[in-house]
């Protein structure tokens, strides 16, 4: 009886064991065997570091934290075993993922990001293939990344599905639906690409792509940006 109890307890401990993820320095590999990983502090990857995430890895973020990626990033989920980033508490949110990888390799496949305030790609080049952004405030905000390609990605249940702050974004065969705003283009942001399904969003869908946003809106963003720096 005691043996059975020990086995059950051991099994439960194994089932809920979490690996703390405290640093992204060096060559970091997150494997399915160590999953789920628990992030309890904001993390920064330097341009000298490499992050590799294998299929089936789940990263849970505890608290209002951010993960800033500035080095080489390879996230290789599969259709049956995606890589998932979400908040540890499903009723809470976290800040989000920020790729600022510059010319470093950025290869992201089958990634799911949930419950973040804002996921950002700025001044980065690479590919996101079959990635899903669900239940975030900003699903993905892209700035100055003309060499970034989004292929067969999905944006659902975000406040802003896909926002392009500046530069050209290449996106194809992607689905943007059930968001409040499907696509949000700012200033000189543009979207290029084919076979995208942009439908069933609460507010402006395709008009946002062709219709210029009001001058008042630009002023609003500028006012916010100045306040941030003042």
């Amino acid at each position, binding site marked *: 009886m005691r043996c059975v109890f020990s086995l059950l307890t051991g099994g439960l401990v194994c089932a809920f064991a979490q690996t703390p993820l405290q640093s992204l320095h060096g060559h970091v590999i997150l494997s399915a065997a160590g999953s789920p990983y628990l992030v309890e*502090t*904001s993390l*920064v990857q330097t341009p000298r570091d490499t992050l590799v995430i294998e299929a089936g890895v789940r990263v849970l973020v505890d*608290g*209002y*934290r*951010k993960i*800033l990626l500035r080095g080489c990033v390879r996230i290789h989920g599969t259709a049956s075993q995606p890589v998932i980033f979400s908040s540890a508490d499903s009723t809470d949110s976290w*800040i989000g993922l*920020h790729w600022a990888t510059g010319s470093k390799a950025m290869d992201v496949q089958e990634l799911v990001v949930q419950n973040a*305030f*804002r996921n*950002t790609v*700025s001044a980065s080049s690479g590919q996101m293939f079959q990635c899903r952004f669900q239940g975030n*405030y900003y699903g993905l*905000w892209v*700035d100055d990344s003309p060499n970034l390609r989004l292929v067969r990605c999905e944006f659902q249940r975000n*406040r802003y599905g896909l926002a392009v*702050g*500046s530069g050209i974004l290449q996106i194809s065969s992607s689905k943007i639906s059930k968001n409040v705003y499907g696509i949000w283009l*700012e*200033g*000189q942001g543009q979207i290029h690409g084919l076979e995208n399904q942009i439908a069933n969003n609460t507010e402006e869908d395709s008009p946002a792509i062709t219709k210029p946003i009001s*001058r*008042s809106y*630009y*002023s*609003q*963003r*500028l*006012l*916010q*940006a*100045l*306040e*941030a*720096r*003042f």
Partner: protein
Amino acid sequence: MRILKQAFLLGILLWLVACNSQKVTLRFHALDPTELHFVLESQMKLIVDNGDSVDALGSNLQVLFHSTPVVNYDDGSARIQIQADSVSYRSTQRSVEECLHVERLLLQEGFQFKMAQDGMMQDIRTDGFFPDLERTDIDFQRLVLKVQPILPTGEVSLGDTWERQQLVGEGPENRAYVYKWFQLEDLYQREGKQLAKLRMNIKYRLDSATTGLRIRDPDFILGSGIILFNVTEGQLEEVSLEIDGSLNVLSPKIMDSLPTMQVRQVLHLWRSRP
């Protein structure tokens, strides 16, 4: 003879005034291990006139924070840790979720700096906090640095003035020098402690090298305020600072040009616990 007598009396009078002039050395007691609690409030108004319409931003930020010395150095300076304890933020140009984001972000902000006895802050390090200023987070560090006085190196008397410059924001995208001018306006006792009332005038430019914004004209931001410095304890008691400016901004990311913007910021810092 009469003229000589008057000159003599005037000389005596001047000598008596000189004897009566109070001299004081202003120093932060950086090595004091006491944890200090402060409130910093920033009220901001930004107005842009588009010709046919006017857009304005009004915001109020209130941060309760504490400062703790973590390392003492032989030269009398110390490394100080600043940690926010409570944050309230409202803005007319942000959604409820965006305001909540700013509050939660600042609440976890902790940063350290090395402070000399004259109040100069250097070598700022953040722990796990990376404001995304390009996408409109708020820079709390800059606000703290802005209200921080830099004290004179030697003794000063009433009416004496001094000038210093301070770097606020050490990152390449967040760098600005603030020129600060001070005058010792008053010295008095309150509840057994000696307090110094300082006038602080500031002058600075927003950095034109930021990626998203460029200031088209060399306009300076000007500000003036009062600092109440506790000479006995070597700590700040209260700071009030009002800043005004007009900016001509070029924002290639957002649009090519914008009309002149009027900026007004009122900063108020005070000790929340004695």
